[in-house]
């Protein structure tokens, strides 16, 4: 089903949500909660060659199309990263390939994730986004 909201809309929702958090604890509790709620990925998709490199934890993204839109599932062995996977799925899932590939995803800086996650770890986030955009490009 088509996501009635655009990527930009969802980004704005997240910016609004994150602006309510007053402490780092709240921000990370939100991510941890997101990580815990993310549906587990079918182990068949958690293969070595699908593993995204770039951080201390392992990340897997499974991408497919349905009704002409790109869908994502994902997983990680670390809970905060799993939350980040959930966050990216929330923003990009069920969107047209073209929109995903071209999304600047500025909300990541606005909600302070790039500063809260040290360089090496946000590289992991960057690798995750790169993979999702690449998949969307191939599937589109």
């Amino acid at each position, binding site marked *: 089903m088509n996501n009635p909201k655009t990527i930009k809309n969802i980004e704005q929702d997240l910016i609004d949500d994150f602006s309510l958090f007053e402490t780092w604890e709240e921000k*990370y509790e939100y991510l*941890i909660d997101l990580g815990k709620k993310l549906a587990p990925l079918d182990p068949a998709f958690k293969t070595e060659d699908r593993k995204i490199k770039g951080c*201390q934890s392992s990340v897997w993204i499974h991408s497919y199309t349905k009704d002409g839109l790109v869908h994502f599932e994902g997983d990680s062995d*670390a*809970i905060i990263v799993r939350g980040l996977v959930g966050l990216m799925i929330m923003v990009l899932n069920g969107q047209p390939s073209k929109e995903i590939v071209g999304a600047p995803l500025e909300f990541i800086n606005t909600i302070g994730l790039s500063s809260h*996650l*040290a360089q090496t*770890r946000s590289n992991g986030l960057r690798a995750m986004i790169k993979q999702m955009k690449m998949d969307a490009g191939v599937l589109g």
Partner: protein
Amino acid sequence: METEGTYDVQAIRAQFPILSRKVKGKDLVYLDNAATAQKPLAVIDALVHYYSHYNANIHRGLHTLADEATAAYEASRTAVKDFVGASSPDEIIFTKGTTDSINLVAHSWGKSFLQEGDEIIITSLEHHANIVPWQMIAAEKKAILRVIPIDDNGILDMEAFKAMLGPKTKFVSVIHVSNALGIINPVEEIIRLAHEQHAVVLVDGAQSSVHLDIDVQTLGCDFYVFSGHKIYGPTGVGVLYGRRDLLESMPPYQGGGEMIKEVRFEYTTYNELPFKFEAGTPNIADVIALKAGIDFINSIGKPAIRKHEEMLLEYATAQLKDISGLRIIGDVKNKVSVISFIIDGVHPQDLAILLDNQGVAVRTGHHCAQPLMHRLGIVGTTRASFAAYNTLEEIDVLTQALNKSLKMLL
């Protein structure tokens, strides 16, 4: 704050400007000393003073600046010689670091003396820096790399080592103190046994040089290597101690300036030790500042630092053991001030992120020892490592931050 006899930890802390900074609004608690130690003001000042007052290329110049720079550079070599108990400064080669030192030995010694079927022995505890150079030279020379196994606590199986030794054993390269677990290996016995087979022994002192009293002549090792930045000195400078006769028998590692005696287009003759192995303009500033790091250690004394660090280790071990689901990896008696641990159901990366938000710097991951992690059946650990300037209060902060992180994660 504790004052252990004459050990004034606050006075020591005052020498380290970085320790007064805040991280994410909290006081920095720096417990990643096994990765790199912070620098006392004397080291920082030595760098600034060199560039401000006597920056010059060394050994060749005849002007005052070159004289002063050369004298300071060579004074550092003498300080290193004393630091490791070598018999002559000629046996001290400056390198980029531990990794560079091991590569120098593996390539120079290995190229000349290794033959097909020869055996090189390392341990299961090695850092990648003491694995990969040996794999490379072993592949080139069709030599065989053998690995001393460990038990589940990380203790070397010395019986297996004895069984491995034989006339084919040409080189034994061992980590003195495990960077991942802090365990002190019985290098004296390893050296003695290896020498019975006339094998050459390199001791990787990256983690031992800052904690243990090192006397290469008493140890009897043929090579001892370490990095400046782990002994409160700058990054980019390391040391290779080598026995004179061995260094003399080895060909140069790199060619260029400094390492030559005479160059014609038809031939080149090489300089004497130690310059034979120091091709090109060396890292003059960092070598000079390394002496300030050594002077810092000597001003307190390794035994006093060790006593302080052991107190921290004992306190931290007791505190951490109270945390439910926490298991110390390498929980043995003979270790330096490093605690590596895992917690049931918690990924080390999650822990590191949440600790960082509380101002606590620890190291997580495989610690550049993937084969060791594989052997222990874990993806990685969280490692807290203590230095001369850490306090009991900082360990309390670590414990509180850990408990808070676990409450958030579980």
